[in-house]
């Protein structure tokens, strides 16, 4: 113990925190128009989408979502979705749930739009990969609540801060799994493309991306799940929706409200997870709808599990709402 106090005497204190403060002030001052534009655009996006989701009668939209699930995955899943979504309505959680859904959809679209190109770049160049990887590690492991501060600094209290934090938090699996998926494509296939004189861009679009698609879709699925978990934490910066209700129940120690909001998150999570994992594997028609989970669906589900496994392990620490697998 004596030694360590000696050490602290020898080593100067490095004011990392102060530097960061200065940097943030500088960014805020110099990039105000940019920040404003981001703020306006994403705010409008979330609000507009929320309004659109709340426009039709709740029961009609729930039925449509359940139908989508039934078509894309299986009849059983469609029915279970309908029951879950109706429960949302009866718990009077529909409106906050749709706010949260709008937030994660906007955040996911932006995260995927950034994540996939970065993932492709990282797969093509080991140098890019070496730069990107620690940044992703930083984004994923930094305690989620720490994001709240800069987000609020830049964008103030409200839904925009929620969207930005959610994007930062949900981005990494999109990048990682895109990179993994493209790197996993058999090198001989890429070589075959080159050998027949195909330009690199065409090889990417015609060979690498189609073959990496299941892995990329697993990444998108993970992005959505992480976005959902972050959307709840975004309640702390006034992003509203289910997260807002969770924060309210916490401050009031209202167990009933907390459980209702939590249950709504779980229903939303399971629905989105199953729906998006079905997207990844069943692009050739709708076999599950006809075969009710016949052999095709079973093997697809099995392979999706093996692809998901390492990712699940890596993200467990992030307290994401874990859908039953």
């Amino acid at each position, binding site marked *: 113990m004596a030694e360590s106090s000696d050490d602290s005497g020898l080593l100067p204190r490095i004011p990392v925190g102060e530097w960061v403060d200065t940097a943030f002030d500088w960014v805020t001052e110099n990039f105000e128009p940019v920040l404003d534009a981001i703020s306006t655009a994403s705010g409008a996006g979330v609000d507009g989408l929320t309004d659109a989701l709340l426009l039709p009668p709740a029961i009609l939209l729930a039925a449509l979502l359940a139908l989508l699930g039934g078509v894309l995955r299986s009849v059983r899943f469609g029915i279970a979705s309908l029951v879950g979504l109706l429960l949302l309505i009866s718990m009077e959680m529909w409106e906050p749930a749709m706010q949260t859904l709008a937030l994660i959809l906007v955040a996911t679209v932006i995260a995927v739009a950034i994540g996939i190109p970065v993932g492709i770049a990282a797969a093509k160049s080991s140098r890019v990969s070496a730069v990107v990887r620690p940044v992703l590690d930083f984004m994923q492991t930094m305690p989620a609540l720490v994001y709240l501060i800069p987000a609020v600094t830049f964008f103030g209290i409200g839904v925009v801060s929620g969207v930005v934090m959610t994007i930062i938090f949900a981005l990494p699996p999109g990048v990682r799994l895109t990179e993994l998926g493209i790197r996993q494509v058999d090198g*001989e*296939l890429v*070589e075959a493309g*080159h*050998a027949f*004189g195909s330009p690199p861009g065409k090889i990417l679009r015609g060979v690498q991306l189609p*073959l990496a698609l299941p892995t990329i879709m697993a990444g998108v699925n993970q992005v959505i799940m992480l976005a959902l978990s972050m959307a709840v934490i975004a309640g702390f910066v006034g992003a509203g929706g289910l997260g807002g209700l969770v924060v309210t129940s916490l401050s009031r120690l209202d167990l009933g409200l907390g459980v209702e909001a939590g249950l709504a998150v779980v229903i939303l999570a399971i629905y989105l997870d199953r729906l998006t994992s079905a997207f990844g594997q069943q692009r050739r028609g709708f076999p599950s709808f006809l075969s009710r989970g016949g052999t095709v669906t079973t093997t697809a589900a099995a392979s999706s599990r093996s692809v998901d496994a390492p990712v699940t392990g890596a993200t467990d620490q992030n307290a994401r709402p874990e859908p039953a697998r």
Partner: protein
Amino acid sequence: MPAVHAEGLFKVFGRRPADAVRRLQDGASVADVRESGATPAVIDAGFSVEPGEIFVVMGLSGSGKSTLLRMLNGLLETTAGTVRVGDAELTALDAPALRRLRQERMSMVFQHFALFPHRSVLDNAAYALEVRGVDRATRRAKAREALALVGLDQWADQKPGQLSGGMKQRVGLARALAADTDLLLMDEAFSALDPLIRREMQDQLLELQASLGKTIVFITHDLNEAMRLGDRIAIMRDGRIVQIGTPDQILETPADDYVRQFLADVDRGRVFTAGHVMVPAPALVAPTAAPAQVLQTMRDTRAGSVLVGDGDGRVVGVATEDVVRTAVAAGASSLAGLPLLPAVDVRATTPLNDLLAAAAQDEVPVTVVDDDGRLAGVVPRGAVLAALGGVPRPAAQPPVALAEAEAVPPADETALITSGGIRG
């Protein structure tokens, strides 16, 4: 002009490759160069491939043969040296020109097939044409033709995953053939297949080659495959080409002990042909010859039989000593009407393996005939055994070209040679 010409090719991986090339050119050993952190994969390779030729590059894994192939189409950049494909100097081209050259002049078949699992068999076969920008209808028609060539046209709409290994490689071959390029690069194309399927594919390739006449550079680690397919073979060891030659040149005069070791496993009976071991044909005995005189000649020369022929140099049958003796005893005036044995005819291109059964039986010599059925030579049994056993041929028996057989030597001498063939 050669279809492919490579000169002074080097490929060195690792640190300071150009420096390593300079040292290797100055005679430094590979071990020395390795010590400084460079890994030479191909060292000073040079060869020419003539149009229509199957040129096989043979070597064990790590000998640099696949690296060499990839420098021929620019998938790997050469560290030093030049590659010319036809009139184009490939090593001097920029990326777009190189892509164009690959699209128009060369195609490749891969060891593990490299079929695109998400495309149908037909679309796989049409890939090269698609890259070249050929419109959909034309390229599908051409791909269908190529699939028909390899016998897979009825599988066009399946996905590659539904095919067996041999069929997959046929699709790989069809993809290369549909491109209709003069040059075909085949990288261990049959190595991943079962032995039986491999044989089948080799036969099919030779058959296709006979009608298409492509220039093929074929990589393999299997010397038997090399001998079977190659018009010429380059043998590689540790990045260097140690010998280039036709299969029988390599079998007869291996460049060094390394090559000789390989040859121990070669099925010589498939490489050597009747033309390789045959000796000049004896003069044919006319059917009108007197049996007594023929018998005397046979005794003088200790021949067991004579070939009876028509005036055109075609063998009509074989008269054995017993038959002639019986004819003499019966007082026949000519050989005509005697029970002659049918001749055993083979072509000069017949592999020794296929004439073993004929050579094994005692009475009738194996005769080699040309396209018109004229006698070109006979195959002495001793020569077959010598060729199979790897015994060098004595200088006194040079290989006989078909043209030489025209000059038919006098009867007495040739009877002697025949006897050597039959009894020896």
